[in-house]
Structure formats: structure tokens, C-alpha cells
């Protein structure tokens, strides 16, 4: 196999990878039918968070969840916005609205939907979890960028950041539904005390 190891070759593969990721996106990201609307997605996310509160997976009460989770739209061009709180949290300020899991990890998110022609497509999102101390890293963010204007941009459309905002440190990520990401935030991404070792270190007791 003759693999082009140049940056141009890598970019082509990055774009191809993103096309595959988008092709495998959860159906919630590209809805059709009677539930294809931003308002329906907003209600479902609110319901998910309230149920998580009822199960004590989140510390915020249903009233607080209803207060924090905001929407706008659809506008005249059929775009719909969902966000946590009014002020966008650029600096990981804990005083701004967010949701908190039992171990103190906290997160917020925003996403945009394009409606029309019987469809509702999630066109962009960012979900960021900030972890408690001693978790191994401080934050993790899943970004779905809006469609780009060139290959370089499209090569990183769906990605994640671990402890670094620099785009150069981003790695490709699956295009997930909001609920898949929230599942991960609520039930995963925490220390469980189980560390996988290599056979060599296991065999030597290391």
C-alpha cells in the first residue's frame, strides 16, 4: 500500500474520516418526521436533565434546570439555539449557570439546530465537562463545528479537546447525540480505581 505521508495526504484522510463520522452520526443529529424540531429537542434535553435530577445524578433541582436551560427560535431562517444560562462561559467560571454531578464535576453546553423541509439538523455544538481535582485532567470538550469553508476546517469538524483549547491539540470524535454526551458526562469520565496494565507489568507484578 502506497500511503502518502505528507501533510496533504494526512489532510485528505482527516476529511475522509470526518465524512465517515458524519455518516455515522446519531439519528438525533439529523431528525426527520414529527419530532424534527428544535423545540422538541429542547424539551427532550430538559426532560433528560430533570430525570437525572430526580435520580440524584445532578445536584440542581428541576426548577433550577428549567431556569438555566434556555432556548431561542426558530427564527425567520429556521435556526434554533439551546444554551445554559444567558452568559456564555468562556473562562470556566463556576459562578455562571451550569449543571453539577455528584462528585463535583460540572458542565454546560450549547447547540444550534437548523429546521426546515421536515428536518431538524444539529449543525454545531459544544459540551464541556470540568472534572474534580485528581481526575487526571481538568476538562474535556466535545465540539461539533459548523460546516467549514475549506478542507482544513472540515478535517476537524467533530473533535474533542482534553485539557487544552488549542486547535492543534484536538482529536477527532464521534458525532454524538446530546444524550450520548450527557450519558458520558453523568455516568462516565470519572475514576473507578481500575487501571489496565500491560501483560508485562501484570506478569512482573509491576
Amino acid at each position, binding site marked *: 500500500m502506497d500511503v502518502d505521508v505528507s501533510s496533504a495526504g494526512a489532510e485528505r484522510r482527516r476529511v475522509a474520516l470526518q465524512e465517515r463520522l458524519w455518516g455515522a452520526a446519531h439519528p438525533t443529529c439529523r431528525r426527520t418526521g414529527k419530532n424534527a424540531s428544535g423545540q422538541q429537542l429542547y424539551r427532550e434535553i430538559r*426532560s433528560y436533565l430533570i430525570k437525572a435530577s430526580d435520580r440524584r445524578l445532578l445536584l440542581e433541582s428541576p426548577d433550577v434546570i428549567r431556569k438555566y*436551560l434556555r432556548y431561542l427560535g426558530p427564527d425567520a431562517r429556521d435556526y434554533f439555539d439551546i*444554551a445554559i444560562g444567558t452568559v456564555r462561559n468562556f473562562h470556566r467560571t463556576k459562578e455562571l449557570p451550569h449543571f453539577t454531578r455528584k462528585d463535583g464535576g460540572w458542565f454546560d453546553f450549547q447547540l444550534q439546530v437548523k429546521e426546515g423541509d421536515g428536518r431538524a439538523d444539529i449543525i454545531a455544538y459544544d459540551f464541556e465537562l470540568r472534572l474534580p481535582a485528581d481526575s487526571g485532567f481538568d476538562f474535556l470538550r466535545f465540539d461539533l463545528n459548523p*460546516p467549514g469553508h475549506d478542507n482544513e476546517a472540515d478535517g476537524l469538524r467533530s473533535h474533542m479537546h482534553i485539557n487544552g483549547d488549542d486547535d492543534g491539540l484536538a482529536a477527532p470524535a464521534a458525532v454524538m447525540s446530546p444524550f450520548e454526551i450527557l450519558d458520558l458526562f453523568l455516568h462516565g469520565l470519572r475514576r473507578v480505581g481500575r487501571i489496565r496494565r500491560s501483560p508485562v507489568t501484570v506478569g512482573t507484578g509491576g
Partner: protein
Amino acid sequence: MSALGLAELADRTLMVPGGWSAVVVDEARIDATTQALEEELTFWLEEEGIGSVRVFSERRPPPALVEELVRMTPEDVALLPLPADIIGPVSRSLDYERARLAGHPRGVILTSEAGLQTLAAEAPNLWSWVGPRVWHVDPLAGQLDAEARLSSLRQGTGLTDAEVLQRAEGGTLAPDPVFAEWLVLLGRGELLGR
């Protein structure tokens, strides 16, 4: 009287099977509020997999309304949009037949302040069922304040709306979720991906 968002209104309506309540809105907004509440209640009932919502917006003889209500279950919700000019005879009939309504659907009467006064005066027994469950609607509950949000985007990035639009129109705007939200809030979502 409390002002509630539609989500909270639906939540409180569903708390009491067979319970009655009143929602007070301007006459001109009765139909729109009824439709929005129907959508919200339908969502929750579908989530729970029990009960259904029915809107009684068409005028019918009050006895016929009662006959239809008693065929519904306590898990169902009957939405009754009753402007001030028709609430009198309807509420008198519901009041007279209230014993038959017990154990049947949750009833939500959507009316104006004037309609509420009529309800209290003409249907004292039904009014006692409603009791403290009289709510105003907060039409802005849950809605994002676009201008305040935009202000936080400007502050967070040091950019102006004009600069963002200029970059978007020129095809040089970074494809970042922050800018996706920015363009949507400006009502220029069509520039995404340019």
C-alpha cells in the same frame, strides 16, 4: 397569583390526576397559549406513556361538553379555552354536573381576568375545586435573551457583530461553535459554512 412557564404549568397540571386548575392570559392569547400548553402536555404524557390531551375549542352545548368529559380518564387532560363571553354558561353547567366530573380528566380552564371573575361568581363549587391552582403564564420563561447573550459573545471574544458578519461573508470566519451561535443569534444562520 404565580406566573409560570409552560413547562412548570404542565408539570403542576400533571401532579394531580383529576385535578382542576385555571390559567389566566389576555383574551387575545388564549388560543396560542392553549396550543402551546397542549404541545407541552402531550410531550410529557408521551414520555410517561399514559393519558392524552384533548382541546375543547369548538363551541358545543354545555351538556354535550360534560358528556365528553366524563368519557375521559383521570390521567387525561382536558384543555378548555373559555373567553369571557362564553365562560358563564359553560362554567354553570360544569358546576351543576360537578359530581359526574369527579374521577375524570384533569381540567385546565384557560381564560382572561374577566373570565376568571365570572368563573368564581357563576360556578362557586367548581371554583372551590380550582382553589389555589390559578396561574398566570410567563411567556418569556425558558427563552434566551438574545441581546444579553450576544453581549457576552462580544465580551468573550473582543469582536463586534460587524466583524463577525464581515468574516462570515468573506468566507474567513473560523468554523467554531461560538460563531455558529453568534450568527444564529444575529439571524444570519445562512452564512454558516460559507
